[in-house]
């Protein structure tokens, strides 16, 4: 059992605040992805959980034990690094066995675990080689095997796939998901790649400027962004935002269209919709087509709506010309509203 609780953790480097009062609870065996652009504090948070960095304030609990004062070796964690960190002076076998030998396990047990994890990661034929004789993908496998061999309560991964080429990344992603689910460990996985995050995570914690903006299931994060940032960061192309002005109580004017919305004592709101959640029709947002990109299954149309960019994913059969005036009808249940001042969802 290894539930991870991060309570009010903050980290300051000199005058720079990398993390502001982060709270996050990760339940046992959960796969949590920390997602954010570079510099958002996700790696710092991971390193604080690992014990490689000390929080300026706050507490870290793993499996009901407070660990923030403990060195990494006493936390029951294993970590996979972005650049693999495979020891170059040891064979693959000794790399995987390294942590087991530190635990002073009997030789028989060491061999059993090394062989089992090597098999799991499909590197059993490489055990006698040195790191210099391996490809990037193979090194990554060794790094994961080394972490799994420890049979830790918690595995921490810092962008483990970002140094691999695209095809290999896809292959490793699927494999990692299977292996980690079978190993029944709690996982924290840091990435800036939203596709990776969506496909791996039980829950995604979206981070921005040292704060967790939203921590929820991938579909929830995609469908119901808690803040404007989440909508604009996740999704390719991202969510569209259009300013809305009050028409009457509970009804708002958006790009020539009047829509029912929240009843609020405000004059301005922001209307948001995913590109795939609009249909070209007779009624809708007034849009002028700027660019048309046929992508095969559908067509990406970039339009001008109220002087701002608006992207719509439309059926590839639709005959649209650059310069056309379109009416884009948003699906009513997919419309989201944001407060322009706090940028939070309503």
């Amino acid at each position, binding site marked *: 059992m290894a539930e991870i609780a991060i309570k009010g953790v903050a980290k300051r480097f000199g005058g720079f605040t990398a993390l502001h009062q982060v709270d996050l609870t990760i339940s046992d065996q959960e796969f949590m992805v920390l997602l954010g652009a570079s510099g958002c504090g996700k790696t710092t948070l991971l390193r604080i959980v*690992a*014990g*490689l960095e000390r929080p300026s304030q706050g507490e870290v609990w793993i499996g009901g034990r407070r660990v923030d004062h403990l*060195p*990494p*070796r006493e936390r029951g*964690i*294993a*970590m996979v*690094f*972005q*650049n693999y*960190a495979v*020891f*170059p*002076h040891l064979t693959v076998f000794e790399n995987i066995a*390294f*942590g087991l030998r*530190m*635990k002073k396990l009997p030789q028989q047990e060491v061999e059993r675990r090394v062989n089992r994890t090597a098999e799991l990661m499909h590197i059993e034929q490489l055990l006698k080689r040195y790191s210099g004789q391996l490809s990037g993908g193979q090194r990554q496998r060794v790094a994961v095997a*080394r972490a799994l061999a*420890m049979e830790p309560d918690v595995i*921490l991964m810092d962008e483990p796939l970002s140094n691999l080429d695209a095809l290999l990344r896809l292959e490793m992603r699927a494999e990692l998901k299977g292996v980690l689910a079978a190993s029944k460990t709690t996982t924290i996985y840091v990435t800036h790649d939203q596709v990776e995050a969506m496909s791996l995570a039980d829950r995604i914690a979206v981070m921005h400027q040292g704060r967790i903006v939203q921590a929820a299931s991938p579909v929830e994060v995609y469908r119901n962004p808690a803040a404007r940032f989440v909508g604009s960061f996740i999704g390719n192309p991202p969510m569209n935002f259009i300013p809305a002005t009050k028409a009457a109580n509970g009804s708002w004017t958006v790009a020539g269209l009047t829509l029912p919305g929240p009843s609020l004592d405000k004059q301005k709101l922001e209307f948001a919709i995913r590109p795939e959640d609009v249909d070209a029709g007779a009624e809708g947002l007034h849009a002028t087509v700027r660019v048309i990109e046929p992508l095969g299954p559908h067509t990406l149309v970039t339009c001008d709506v109220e002087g701002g960019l608006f992207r719509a994913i439309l059926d590839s059969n639709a005959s649209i010309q650059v310069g056309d005036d379109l009416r884009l009808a948003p699906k009513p249940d997919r419309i989201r509203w944001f407060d322009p001042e706090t940028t939070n969802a309503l």
Partner: protein
Amino acid sequence: MSAVAETPVAAVADARKAGDWLLIATAILLGVWVLLPIYLLIVNALSSPDQVTAFPKRFFPSFDLGSLSFFINFAGVARALWNSVLVATLTMILAIGFGAPAGYALSRFDFPGKGSFRFLVLMTRAFPLPLLALPLAVMFIRTGLDDTAIGLALVHTTLALPFAVLITFSLFSGIPVELEEAAWTLGCTRWQAFRKVILPLALPGIAASAVFAFTISWNEVFAAAVLTIENRTLTAFLLQSLGESPLYLKFAGGAALVVPALIFIFAVRKYLFAMWGIANR
């Protein structure tokens, strides 16, 4: 622009060829500059006394070991040689003992004054030894360190330390910090991670840096001549006694000094190049 474009291809090729020749000529000149004295030294050391003073010179030495064996058996040489080895070994131990931890600290930790510390390490080389020799001699006599191997080794350590610090600094910087962190997460204490991961990777370089410190002490003559009287090192001894010796003995003594130093430097050249940021093979 157009002038450049219209330059005949042949002229460009000529210019490039001339540049190549210039490069080769410079390389040869520099090679001769370094190698010729060494060549003459060795040829003369390996020739009989008559051949040293004779003219014309022979291109190949006669491999007459007479002068060398005479030199080795010369009174005091064995003792001076022993002193040199002793001082150089002490210097090596002190320089690495202090230099390697400093290099590690510089590469792994951020501390206030780090930049000035690095600069000061280099600055120690800016003071000419003759300037320091007299006050040092006075101080050594007062503390009783004069004419001892450890006293001279201390002076040589100050000469060797900047190199030891900078070589080990670049050495440790070349080892990714993630390797150490990975070792920590795999159950190592700081010291275990250093011993099991960093040290094996740094050891060849540390050995090279040690050999370099040894060579610096081996070659040093000024402090050795000023600070020792009875317990002279080989360099100081040769400076003192070979001044009036016949030419062939000077050559033999010179070779005895230069050849070991050359061999040491040759053995560790890769790491010295690495320190100076030249890609090594």
